[in-house]
């Protein structure tokens, strides 16, 4: 779990790991490979939903799935169900509530079963019940051996789920430790 005040550089760090921003110094390796070669292993969820308003949920996922070489709708429907959305929903994203967009955004990040999941404020604008559901989903992924790097201010939801925390301030890593014993 990545923490820090607003403007500390948390989102920028996530974007750098995702390959969206260049690092000014040093290099980033994902499971031993440069980001460019590890894109199949990365799932990224940002503040913005990264979805087309004019398409419905499955159409959005289908488009992005084709970019990953996935032709089947099966993993897409599964991803939607895992985040608590109905794959048969034909409403366009523009008509979704903020919470539904957030959940579909998470489905877009996980449908290809990435080994590294980068999540920027996944609980913002999500109702408490959905947030708990998402937290459970993430716990399941962590148990399955996936790595999750998550930015959140809602520490309470992850108090028993995250292994480690990192604290950033003004672009620097200022603290890190294990979550055991950390108070929400």
């Amino acid at each position: 779990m990545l923490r820090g005040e607003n403007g500390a550089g948390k989102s920028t760090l996530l974007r750098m790991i995702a390959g969206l921003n260049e690092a000014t110094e040093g290099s980033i390796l994902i499971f031993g490979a440069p980001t460019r070669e590890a894109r199949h292993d990365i799932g990224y969820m940002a503040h913005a939903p990264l979805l087309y308003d004019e398409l419905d949920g499955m159409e959005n996922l289908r488009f992005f799935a084709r970019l990953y070489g996935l032709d089947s709708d099966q993993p897409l429907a599964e991803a939607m169900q895992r985040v608590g959305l109905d794959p048969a929903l034909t409403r366009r994203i523009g008509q979704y509530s903020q919470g539904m967009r957030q959940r579909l955004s998470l489905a877009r990040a996980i449908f290809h079963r990435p080994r590294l999941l980068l999540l920027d404020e996944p609980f913002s604008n999500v109702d408490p019940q959905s947030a708990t559901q998402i937290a459970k989903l993430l716990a399941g992924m962590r148990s399955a051996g996936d790595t999750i790097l998550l930015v959140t201010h809602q520490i309470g939801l992850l108090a028993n789920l995250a292994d480690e925390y990192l604290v950033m301030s003004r672009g620097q890593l200022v603290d890190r430790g294990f979550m055991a014993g950390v108070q929400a």
Partner: protein
Amino acid sequence: MKAGPATTGKGEKSMSITRLTWINVRKDLRLEWRSRDVLNSMLFFSLLVVVIFSFAFSPTVDESRRIAGGLVWIAFLFSMVMALNQSWARELRNGVLDAYRVSPAPAEALFLGKCLGNFIFVILLECLMAPLFMVFYNLSSVGPLWQLVVIALLGTWALVVNGTFFAAMSIRTRNRELMLPLLLLPISIPAVGSMVTATTQVLTGEGSPVMQMKFLAGFCVVFTTACFLLFGTVLNAE
């Protein structure tokens, strides 16, 4: 251009640039079908140009043949500028472009997909506007019609390729609506000049447009190759 399979992992199917390009085209067509942002703005602008110029000048048949080439292409060029901005703005809304950049799909497929999508939109506009131009300006071609079709296809592709590339370059700038014409128009002057000259030659029957058509074909090849090769850098520039 590379059309081989892209790298894959986890047992996913290998994806060729051709297939990914088609996926992007299909997505753009679907988005446009549902929003009609691009076609509506292009049609409205072109229609205004046709009507205003026809009332302002009331040209004779001979005069029409001489000015129509310039008028038609300027109307399409400026309509296209509006459309290109919108086609990329769609990718920035909700940050969707980031989702594409994070994926393993090559940037070139996005570029070619956008080019083909915009090409289809502009050709559609030309098909809809051509009869109106003929009616309002009392136009009829002295030269063969197939030459006009070839000029339209080559000219449209020349403008669309450059336009798509420079629109992607200017999309993250604050004054993108201003930046695109500033970048695109100077680069397009040779192509526009050829298109206007060739169109006028066909309409009036004075001279052969073959040299201009060859020039346009060369322009298309050179700029398509250059834009294709440079697009990855433009897309990932922050």
